[in-house]
């Protein structure tokens, strides 16, 4: 079946008209962060059958609305009324309040800085459309960018546009996306691949899960554009098996797109074809590293290999391969649709656009946010995040997970960008921000991260395999207050060895949490140097 642009527009228009036919929409978050949503939806449907206005109201399941801490969240349109912590038992009351005064006890003020201070691009359709409905996505202007690209643009134009936008990889390293695309496009070889890295292993980061659960079609659209630009006809999405809902929605989205000829052969009547397959990850953080990811997609142990050659030249099955992360690709349709200049106009000089962060830990408004690059950590933590609960004080914000660092209060006014975070000894990473208050021991949290890196080390290279284990042993000595002076020196030199000689990014960045806390919170280590119990002294005392 070939579907043309006009037919897609028709589908979109039909859905828009259908939606406009309802006086009210009750949008219920059905992401992982809002449990019991099935019961809530059923309760609303039940309440509506008992209500006169029932036929004029549409209950829709939607993706993540961001403020997970207030979940389950329900949004009433067109009034833009947010209800928080909704239980199935609240449905009747909410329904009877439609068109009248909202239910005060459940009301979530929509003028909270959490909502007003954000700038949504990737998250724009979050909580607004049904993730399992292609028509919903089309009605919101979805696939316009992809179809325009495929039918009206040359690959080089697409790459130039992405390049001009200044988009950089959102998975961690921040490599310029346009440059990556053009390297793959220029690489020798007829067969090329696109691999989408959705193996979000960073503890404390869940933006990729939310994208897959809320707007899976946006990711497919990004992949379509990328594959067209680099000349690939086959793409893989490598998703964590720990995200069953995301996998289900993604599979459904691929089926829908295939049926509408937005995937498959001769897409929308063009000469361009693309198949997208899903590969399930199986619980190995190291598979976030691109060569390990390739090994895993090929069905083997997720063990990295030395680079060069880079995957752009020799990737999946030795062919040129473009590897981008979910959020990176989800940014692409917006850039094509609204223009590279729009995107480049957001953010800082070297870090363009917006970034999605998973704001968690000891913070009032835990959830998913999107802000322009360059917003300060203070604005994110204190305004959007609403500060620290329970009368506690801010101690540090951890970014970049086990590869990142802990940023103390004195640097809260730093504008967030790739450069600034790495200057502070941390990294942007995939966007996890874990806020910690004064009750958190830094030595504890670093020991936790080192245990993570040790367990996730693939074991191939010696510095990472044994080095992380020995760093963990040393940190345990600090944790149990049995460390001696020499241990600090040994720990620091081991950090440098592991950082400078490990084979892949996992090992190279594993010492970051230690180095950053040694930098900002050194006294916490020093006060734990009390040495082991000396049996001889003990005997003397007795």
């Amino acid at each position, binding site marked *: 079946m070939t579907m043309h642009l006009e037919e897609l527009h028709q589908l979109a228009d039909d859905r828009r008209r259908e939606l406009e036919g309802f006086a009210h929409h009750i949008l219920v978050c059905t992401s992982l962060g809002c449990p019991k949503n099935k019961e809530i939806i059923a309760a609303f449907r039940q309440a509506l059958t008992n209500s006169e206005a029932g036929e004029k109201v549409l209950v829709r399941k939607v993706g993540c609305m961001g403020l997970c801490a207030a979940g389950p969240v329900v949004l009433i349109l067109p009034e833009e009324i947010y209800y928080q912590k909704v239980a199935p038992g609240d449905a009747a009351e909410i329904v009877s309040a439609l068109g009248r005064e909202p239910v005060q006890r459940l009301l979530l003020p929509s003028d909270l800085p959490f909502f007003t201070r954000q700038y949504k691009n990737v998250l724009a359709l979050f909580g607004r459309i049904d993730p399992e409905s292609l028509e919903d996505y089309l009605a919101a202007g979805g696939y316009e960018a992809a179809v325009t690209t495929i039918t009206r643009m040359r690959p080089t134009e697409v790459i130039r546009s992405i390049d001009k936008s200044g988009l950089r990889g959102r998975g961690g390293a921040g490599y310029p996306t346009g440059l990556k695309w053009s390297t793959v496009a220029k690489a020798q070889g007829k067969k090329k691949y696109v691999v989408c890295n959705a193996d979000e292993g960073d503890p404390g980061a869940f933006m990729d899960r939310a994208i897959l659960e809320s707007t899976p079609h946006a990711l497919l659209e990004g992949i379509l554009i990328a594959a067209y630009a680099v000349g690939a006809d086959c793409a893989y999405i490598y998703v964590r098996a720990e995200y069953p809902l995301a996998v289900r929605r993604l599979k459904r989205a691929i089926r829908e797109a295939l049926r509408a000829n937005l995937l498959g052969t001769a897409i929308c009547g063009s000469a361009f074809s693309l198949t997208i397959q899903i590969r399930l990850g199986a619980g190995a953080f190291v598979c976030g590293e691109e060569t390990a990811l390739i090994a895993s997609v090929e069905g083997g142990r997720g063990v990295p290999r030395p680079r060069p050659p880079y995957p752009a030249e020799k990737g999946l099955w030795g062919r040129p391969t473009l590897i981008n992360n979910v959020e990176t690709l989800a940014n692409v349709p917006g850039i094509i649709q609204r223009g590279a200049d729009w995107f480049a106009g957001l953010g800082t000089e070297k870090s363009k656009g917006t970034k999605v962060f998973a704001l968690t830990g000891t913070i009032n408004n835990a959830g998913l946010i999107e802000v322009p690059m360059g917003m300060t950590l203070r604005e994110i933590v204190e305004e959007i995040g609403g500060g620290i609960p329970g009368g506690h004080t801010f101690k540090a914000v951890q970014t970049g997970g086990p590869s990142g660092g802990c940023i103390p209060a004195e640097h809260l006014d730093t504008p967030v960008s790739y450069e600034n975070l790495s200057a502070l000894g941390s990294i942007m990473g995939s966007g996890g921000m874990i806020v910690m208050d004064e009750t958190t021991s830094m030595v504890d949290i670093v020991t936790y991260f080192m245990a993570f890196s040790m367990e996730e080390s693939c074991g191939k290279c010696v510095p990472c395999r044994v080095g992380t284990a020995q760093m963990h042993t040393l940190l345990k000595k600090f944790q149990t207050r049995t460390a001696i002076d020499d241990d600090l020196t040994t720990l620091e030199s081991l950090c440098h060895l592991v950082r400078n000689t490990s084979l892949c990014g996992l090992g190279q960045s594993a010492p970051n949490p230690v180095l950053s806390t040694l930098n900002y919170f050194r006294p916490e280590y020093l006060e734990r140097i009390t040495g082991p119990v*000396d*049996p*001889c002294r003990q*005997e003397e005392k007795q």
Partner: protein
Amino acid sequence: MNKPRLATLWLDGCSGCHMSLLDTDERLLDLAARVDLVYSPLVDCKLYPEAVDIACIEGAVSTAEDECRLRSVRERTKCLIALGDCAVTGNVPAMRNTWGTDTVLRSVYLEREALAARIPTEDLPLLSDKALPLHTFVKVDFFLPGCPPSADTIFSALTALIEGRSADLRLNTGFGT
């Protein structure tokens, strides 16, 4: 001029390193002329004296008593040498570390002993859970690995130290052999 005061100590080891020291043969006379041997399993002296210049320690630290002796030697000695693999790495005594002292004692004295099986304790210091190298507990100034380090190695190391050439102590010795 006072001669340097030399001590040697035998912790958990097989005494092979001391044998190797004796293997320096006629050079022993040479050594004897240049140092005062103030403490050693080879001499009759019960207490470790004060102000020792060089101490060679053979063996791993296997009991709390070993540890106490080591610590007190460290306090009274300028230059401490870990002599041989047991003192340097734990070596053979440390082979029990994998399974734990208790398991090893049971295996040796109970499970494989048909008659009067019992773990000897009388007049014996209690074994620690692990046998560990000296530098786990105290600062070690020089390491002489080898099982044992050869007589030549020991002799040239001691001569160098006596002559104050500690900085360019280059020894052809390694673990094992």
